[in-house]
């Protein structure tokens, strides 16, 4: 489903005459199969987010190739990425990234609004989704009126609403307490089993890694270990 080949990435920091190249990812090769849950772990600053941002198209790699769903997305222009994201990818962020001026309902609806889905279908799917994530009673709440767990459920609902085959999540449980974290992880597992959605999850939390089919460890921008989890 996702294939990363010889991927390297460097940031350039400093002003013009004092520019420094900071190599963050070095020669990464990895593959994520369809229906897999893969977690990426590693110390802070090891390059996990950078790797995910490259897969999301938020930044362009210095070297190497990325294939998602058999498409070479490495050279995609911004508009191509936009369409690709809208069709194939769902995103969950550590800080939820909900639009504060929109209600839970509107936030969940947003991807469909942007895609031009009909009002009728939108309504039906949002209602279904609200049910699925258990936010029926909170649909008219604004993000500021929801708890962290509820907000994260809204953002999960938003990621799922256009039924993408892949979901990319950067520390999705990072802002949640243990109880809510467990709920979310159960939900992720359920989605993976029932709808065969592929997950790439960044975490530095062993709990999260436990739901994974595979855990990839990054150390100083290099792939350190690719460990299959035997027991699910």
């Amino acid at each position: 489903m996702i294939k990363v080949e010889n991927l390297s990435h460097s940031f350039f920091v400093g002003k013009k005459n004092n520019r420094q190249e900071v190599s963050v990812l070095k020669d990464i090769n990895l593959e994520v199969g369809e229906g897999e849950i893969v977690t990426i772990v590693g110390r802070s600053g090891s390059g996990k987010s950078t790797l995910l941002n490259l897969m999301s198209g938020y930044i362009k790699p210095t070297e190497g190739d990325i294939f998602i769903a058999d498409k070479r997305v490495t050279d995609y222009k911004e508009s191509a990425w936009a369409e690709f994201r809208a069709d194939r990818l769902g995103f969950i962020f550590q800080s939820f990234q909900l639009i504060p001026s929109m209600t839970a309902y509107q936030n969940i609806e947003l991807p469909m609004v942007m895609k031009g889905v009909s009002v009728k279908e939108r309504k039906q799917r949002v209602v279904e989704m609200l049910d699925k994530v258990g936010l029926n009673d909170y649909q008219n709440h604004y993000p500021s009126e929801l708890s962290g767990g509820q907000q994260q459920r809204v953002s999960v609902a938003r990621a799922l609403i256009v039924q993408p085959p892949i979901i990319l999540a950067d520390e999705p449980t990072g802002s949640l307490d243990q109880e809510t974290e467990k709920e979310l992880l159960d939900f992720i597992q359920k989605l993976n089993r029932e709808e065969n959605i592929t997950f790439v999850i960044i975490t530095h939390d062993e709990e999260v890694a436990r739901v994974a089919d595979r855990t990839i460890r990054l150390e100083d921008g290099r792939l350190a270990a690719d460990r299959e989890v035997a027991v699910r």
Partner: protein
Amino acid sequence: MKWKDRFQFIRQNMQKNKSRVFMTILATSIGCAFLIVLASVGFGAQRFIVNDIMQDRAVTEITVYGKQTQEEGESPEITKDDIESFKSLETVKAVSHKIQLRTETEILYDAYSGGSTVSVVDFQSEKETGMKLSSGRMPQSENEVLIGYHLDQLLYKKSDEQTGDQIFNQNGLVKEEYRMDEGLLNKTVEIEVEQYKGDEWITETFPVEVVGIMEEPARDWQVSSDIYISEAVLTDIEAFTETAYGATIHPDMKTDEVETLQAEGKDRVYNDVQVIAGNMEQVENLSQNLKDEGYHIYSVTEELDQINIVFAVVKVGLIIVGTIALLIASIGIYNTMSMAVTERTQDIGIMKAIGGHPKMIRSIFLMESGYIGLMGAFVGVALAYLVSVGINMLLPLVIQQVFDQTLEEAIQLSYIPPYLALVCVALSIGVAMLSGLKPARKATRIDVLSALRRDV
């Protein structure tokens, strides 16, 4: 993204900062109203002048002065053949033509007398061209004539005591106390013609019957002292003068000059030839046809063309000045949109992160600024109509105050044709979208990661 959803989205966004949006719309509408009112004065003045021109002259009239001689021996003057050829043209309704008597004449009635201009007209043609009488009827027999509206006010008793100043008032008419106290309708008047014959001046009179009085001229300063006679009377006069068109021979004229005067007139030539087109639309084509055939002509359309060119320039000038006001308003729109983009950086970042297309984001912001332009234009148009009505209402009062004069007719100084309002709406939306262009582009260029990190 559906259009309906975009509008919904924009509405929601604008609601977040109502007062700012309102102020920007207000500025735009003032700019718009200023532009419209300024231009409306140009339109009003143009309409006033054009109406003024159209008022007293039949707009379907084409005056033919003569023609360029093309073949040798052909006269530059309009002859019977020319008149006939005009009449045969399809779009010509009628042809009015005159022959002017080439001598000074006096009109006599009782003891009263006065000067007049005598012309031969074809009464049938005049009827076709729509000549109107203030009283009486059109002549039917040869010695029946029409007289100008003012003729009876131009006759007075000759005496040595009074000078012209005492007799005539400032309008050039005889003062009431010297006027005759009855009209000339259905009276027999005499046309007095002088000619130098042998060695002395001989006077002859030709009695004619007044059966109709022409309409009052449209302009109140015009004095109509015409007498329209039939060709038969002219023939009588010519028989007496022994010259064509009754031309006067002066004692100091050379023999050959006298001979030309006598020889002329076998082929009548006409003055004041007016070709009347069937309707206003045909005038332009007909004018061109006549020009192409080598006639010197004049029609109101020519004058209108020129006036319209002048006013087109004036209006463009006014619109440019007005547009400056709109441009100033556009700075406000630019500001508002820039702030809106900055405020919504996070939202835009989130939208882009989950698949929002840059084009869609740009279009939303362009629509938003266009919407400000549209609303500003609507309010501005309404405002402009109010101001326009106000100007038109106040103008007569101001004129009365300042010049101590009341206007006979209502002058519409400010006139807003519907298309001016439409042009302004389009201009306003255009200018607004133009000033929204840069902020919109800034929105599409927002970096997803910096926006999500909230460090912009």
